[in-house]
Structure formats: structure tokens, C-alpha cells
């Protein structure tokens, strides 16, 4: 009985599928889109924090913080990171305090209750440059600059994607893809948009933020602040903001693996011993 009904139901599903297939024939060849032809995979970016043994390069993170602070923070917030967290980049308490105090954070005037600002404290999060989303959109051609705290985890491609994006602005008039094709007219950027073949739909509302060598002045003993170098540094910094416990995690992971390796070898040996004279 079960088998009889099973076969009926099975034939029902199979017929519905055959019907679906026939209904979708003949296939119409799908038009290739500009995104398929022009979108680029992230370029390679080697960071000290890569790999199972990787550690953050603290000097590079400090440079990245500087780039964020002097360039990106004009439009992007970092709301999940507090000033005190930068102690992990190798700053001492005094440096953290003065870094925080150099930022104005929103507060309330204690006398009038009106919105006001005050110098930041280590416990405060990096402030947003705009009072609210409407203001942010109004200042950016109706686009919203995303919070950057998690950006390297929130995009396919991670840090290499951010690096490629920052160095990926191209002239839409002269750009040619691998096949030598020019960008079709309807894929050229509209007003307020900028062509970047690494961006998902090729045109984004962010103007190239890093444009010239020396835009940020690095202290002595650091590499030259070329656009490429600044883009690398800020990407490395954004890996840290997204995953501040990265080094800790790998250290615990190695400890756990060491323990488990011993555990597994011991249990394997006792397993062999117990089963030694038992064929199975």
C-alpha cells in the first residue's frame, strides 16, 4: 500500500518537473551583462596577519589607523571600535587619552539639555561624522557610507577586496577590460558616481579617497605613503577592527590542537590495545 501510494506521489513530482522543463523550452540565450564582462576579482594582498601563524604588523596597523583617521573618518564611522581598543595597536595610556580627546563626541549640554559635543574619552566609540543617516545621505549624493568596523568580514573577498576597491578607480572613457572592450555607454557612471571595476555594480558613490602620494604623512622609519601603501595599511587596519581577537583566537586554537593531538594518539593506542586480539 505504502509502495503503491509512494509510486503515485513520485510520478506526480516527476511529471510536474517534466512539465516545468517543457514549459521553459526553448531556452533563450541570456544577454551578457556589463557586470559579467567588466567586474574584477580582488587583487592579491599579502598581510602579516594572513595564515594560521599570522600576527598583526602593529606598525602597519598604526599607519592604517592614521589613514582612517585623516581620510576615511570624514565619511565613515567605526562604531564598534572604542578609543581604548587602540591600546592593542601599541599605544600607551596617555596616547590613547589624547587620541580620544582630539575627537569631539556627541553629548548633552549639562545646563540647557541641548545637544552638544565634548572631547572624547577612551570608553567612547569612534564617532560618526554625521548626526544621522539623512545627513549622511544628503552629504553623499544620497548614498550611505557604510560603517567600516566589520567591512572586511562583510564583503566577499575581505581585505583584498577593500584594497582593490581603494586602488581600483579607473577612467571610464579609456578603460579596457582583458578582452580589450570599452565600457558600454549605459554602464558609464551617472552624476556623482565613480567607475571602479572592483565594485559589485561597477559604479559607486564614493569618490576616490586616496589620490596622491603623501596625502597622509607617515612618521620616520615607515615606508613612503604611496596610494598603494596607504590602501594596504588601511585594509590591514580594517582586518583588525573586524576581528580584534584574531591573534588570541589562533593562539588558543594551536593550544587546543596540541592537546587534542595528544588525546587522539593516546585514545588510538588504547583502542588498538583493547582490540589487539579481536578480529573485526
Amino acid at each position, binding site marked *: 500500500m505504502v509502495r503503491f501510494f509512494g509510486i503515485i506521489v513520485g510520478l506526480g513530482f516527476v511529471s510536474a518537473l517534466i512539465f516545468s522543463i517543457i514549459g521553459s523550452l526553448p531556452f533563450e540565450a541570456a544577454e551578457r551583462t556589463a557586470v559579467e564582462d567588466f567586474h574584477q576579482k580582488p587583487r592579491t594582498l599579502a598581510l602579516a596577519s594572513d595564515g594560521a601563524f599570522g600576527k598583526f604588523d602593529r606598525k602597519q596597523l598604526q599607519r592604517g589607523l592614521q589613514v582612517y583617521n585623516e581620510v576615511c573618518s570624514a565619511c565613515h564611522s567605526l562604531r564598534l571600535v572604542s578609543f581604548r581598543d587602540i591600546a592593542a595597536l601599541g599605544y600607551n595610556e596617555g596616547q590613547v587619552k589624547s587620541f580620544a580627546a582630539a575627537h569631539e563626541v556627541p553629548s548633552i549640554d549639562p545646563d540647557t539639555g541641548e545637544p552638544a559635543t565634548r572631547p572624547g574619552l577612551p570608553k567612547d566609540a569612534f564617532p560618526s561624522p554625521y548626526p544621522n543617516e539623512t545627513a549622511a545621505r544628503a552629504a553623499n549624493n544620497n548614498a550611505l557610507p557604510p560603517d567600516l568596523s*566589520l567591512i572586511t*568580514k562583510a564583503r566577499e573577498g575581505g581585505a583584498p577586496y577593500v584594497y582593490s576597491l581603494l586602488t581600483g578607480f579607473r577612467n571610464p572613457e579609456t578603460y579596457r577590460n582583458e578582452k580589450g572592450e570599452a565600457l558600454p555607454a549605459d554602464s558609464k557612471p551617472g552624476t556623482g558616481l565613480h567607475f571602479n571595476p572592483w565594485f559589485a555594480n561597477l559604479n559607486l558613490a564614493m569618490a576616490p579617497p586616496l589620490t596622491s602620494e603623501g596625502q597622509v604623512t607617515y612618521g620616520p622609519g615607515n615606508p613612503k605613503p604611496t596610494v598603494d601603501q596607504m590602501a594596504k595599511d588601511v585594509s590591514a587596519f580594517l582586518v583588525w577592527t573586524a576581528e580584534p581577537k584574531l591573534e588570541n583566537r589562533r593562539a588558543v586554537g594551536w593550544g587546543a590542537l596540541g592537546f587534542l593531538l595528544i588525546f587522539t594518539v593516546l585514545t588510538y593506542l588504547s583502542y588498538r590495545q583493547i582490540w589487539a586480539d579481536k578480529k573485526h
Partner: protein
Amino acid sequence: MSFPWAEAYKPKSGFTQWIDERLPLPRLVYGAIGAGYPVPRNLNYFWNFGVLAGVALTIQIVTGIVLAMHYAANAGIAFDSVEHIMRDVNSGWMLRYMHMNGASFFFIVVYIHMFRGLYYGSYKAPREMIWLLGVVIFLLMMATAFMGYVLPWGQMSFWGAQVITGFFSAIPIVGEPIRQLLLGGFAPDNAALNRFFSLHYLLPFVIAGVIILHIWALHIPGSNNPTGVDVKSESDTVPFHPYYTAKDGFGLGVFLIAFVIMAFFLPNFMGHPDNYIPANPLSTPAHIVPEWYFLPFYAILKSFTGNFLWIPAKLWGVLAMFGSILLLFFLPWLDKSPVRSAKYRPTYRTFFWVLVIDVIILGYLGQAHPSNWTVLASQICTAYYFAHFLIIVPILSRIETTLPMPNSITEAVLSGEADEAHPVGVSATNPAHPEPAKA
């Protein structure tokens, strides 16, 4: 329950005797997973996965309870409370990554466990009840995992909830009210998040309860084995302890190594980047996909594109998606072949491997960007899925010629040589336990 030669529990001290007379818990453990439980001696590593599923559930419950101490089920702050766990709670990142990857490992383990059951025919008489309870556990796991994924309130959480609860609205008349009941509103919102959290906390304990029934049912006939031949005499079995406790201990080590590699070194490999973007009802992600363990079912859902027999395509998809799991409840009666193990069913074995590859391809298609060819491929694979369980297996179980089977497990293991008659640790000359007559 169990076999006549099972070792009986004997309290070793006055204290254990005292306990045994009042609460015979040590006796229960001894008979369930101790030396008092005879198990076929020829089980291979596939039989480790039941215990591993229990370990995975334990990991989920322990990490989940601590996470719940810091998580806030409120649409306004849920996302940030998860990031607070990742950044500020002591070892919070570890709890969260273990819970996140633990869910994937739970499914990996349970899929292998189900593969084992299908390959060796463990769902057949007399183990139907174990199998039915297993399918119930599987459904509960899927519900738990789906609701858990909503809790961080990222983009995929929100849109996943939107799409999955949307399936219900395909059902005529009752569908839309069911959807609103699930969500507590017209779209996923605070009400939905709160009830999902409540249920996500409840269901693992329901699963734990059903597992007790699952193992109870298992202990009536005892475990199946790779030959599928019934246990016939004492020499076919070994006591669970120490033989299988040792083997399960080793399996546990290997499992935990794989788990640690993923949770500590590649924690986001099985996740989706969009779930690190806070939920935004006004911005639909370019490509909504469920977690990897739902992908084959998602592909089945999407493969019905034509209205057929007055049933709209969308409803066909929903029926097929639920049907693809519910049909497992009928499997013990769809497959009436008296031979359990695929080892002795060459034709079934071929079809079964086709099914395994078919499901893997469906998983791939579930996340692929849709094109004419991926839709066609998922239609063909879905058709095979249903044809396999509902047409091929029932017919095959009547007409298949099977291979000759060994007379007993011992014979299969020793393949003729009689170099031992009795397992270590079980007395050879216990007159109270005569060997049962060979069937």
C-alpha cells in the same frame, strides 16, 4: 531487551549496592553503554557518528547557554549584542565561533549518520522506530538551526526569515495566517526575533528528549552492522565497554581536531559575509542563500517552475521541499527488501551512490546564480531524488537479485578461520547463557 549473554550489573561495594537498591542509575548506564551492552564486533567507523552527534548537541547546548547570558533578543540591539560578545565578553569570540561552526558540524555528523543508515539499511525492521525518531530529530534540528541563524539579525538572518516564512504563504487559505503566526506580524520584526529566540532555546532540549527515545529504541534490537546480518551468538558481539568506548574516544579526538581547525582558523568559511551587515528591511541582498546544510532542499524548492494540475509552481516547490524530507518517514515501508546492507545489494548500491552525488549537485545548485542550465540541472536532480525514493527503491526491492550473505557476523569477520570463540571479558563457560540455536 538486549541479548541473553549480556553481563549483569553487580555492585562492587556496599555503597554501590546501597545506591543500586534505591536508584539503579549505575545499572542503567552499565546496561546502556557499559560492559552490560553487547554490540556487534564488526562495526566500522560509520558507527561513531551517533555518539558524535550527541557530542555536537552537547557543545551547542553548553556554548548556547552562555551566549544567551550576553545576547539581547531585541531587533534594535541584537546585532550589536553579538558584536559585544565578539569584542568585550571574556572568550566571547570563542563561544560564538564554536556555536556557529558547531551547528555546521552537527549537520555534517548527522548527514553522515543518515548516510550510514541508508547504506546499511538500518531503517529496516526491527529498527523502524529508531529511524522514525531520527527523522523527527532531523526536522527539529532544521527548525532550530533556521531560528538560530535569525538571532544575530544580520542581512541574511532577516532575509532568510523573510524567504523561508514566505514559503507558507504559498499554501492556499491557511498559509498566510500560519506565516503571520510564525512571525507575530506581517514581516520579520521584533516579535519574530523574540519568539525565535524563545524557541531556539527550547528545541535543543526537545531534541535531547527525542534522542533518549532514539537510543532507547536502539537498545531493543541493538545496533545493526555492516553486513546487515542479525546477531546470532555471543561470539558476534563484544561488550560496549571497553571496546566501543575506546573506539568512540578515538573518533571523538578526530572529530574535535576537525572542529577546532574550522572554529579557530576558518571560523567564517561556512558563513555568509552579508550576515555581518545589520538587518535592513529596505535593502534586499543581491543573492539570498540559506546556510549550506539547507542548500539541497532550497534547490528542490526552486526547481518547480511550471503550474501543473491546477497547483501553482510555487506550491509545488513548497510541497516538494517538505515532501523530500517527509518521505523519509515512509522509507522502511517503501523498501521491503529483506537484505539490509547495500554490500549485498549491488543494484541498490549503484542507485544509492547516484543519489549521493545527486544530493551533492543539488547542494551546489542551491547556491549557484540561477541560469537556464542550473535550473534545468536542478529539475533533473530533483526528479531523480523523488524517483529514487518513491519509484526506484520500491520496485527494486521486489525484483533485485542480491548477493549471498555470510551466515553470521563471526563468519564474516573470521572468513572461515575459527581462531577464537569468545570475546575477551565475556566468560566462555557461563551455563546461564547458552548460545542460541543457529537460525
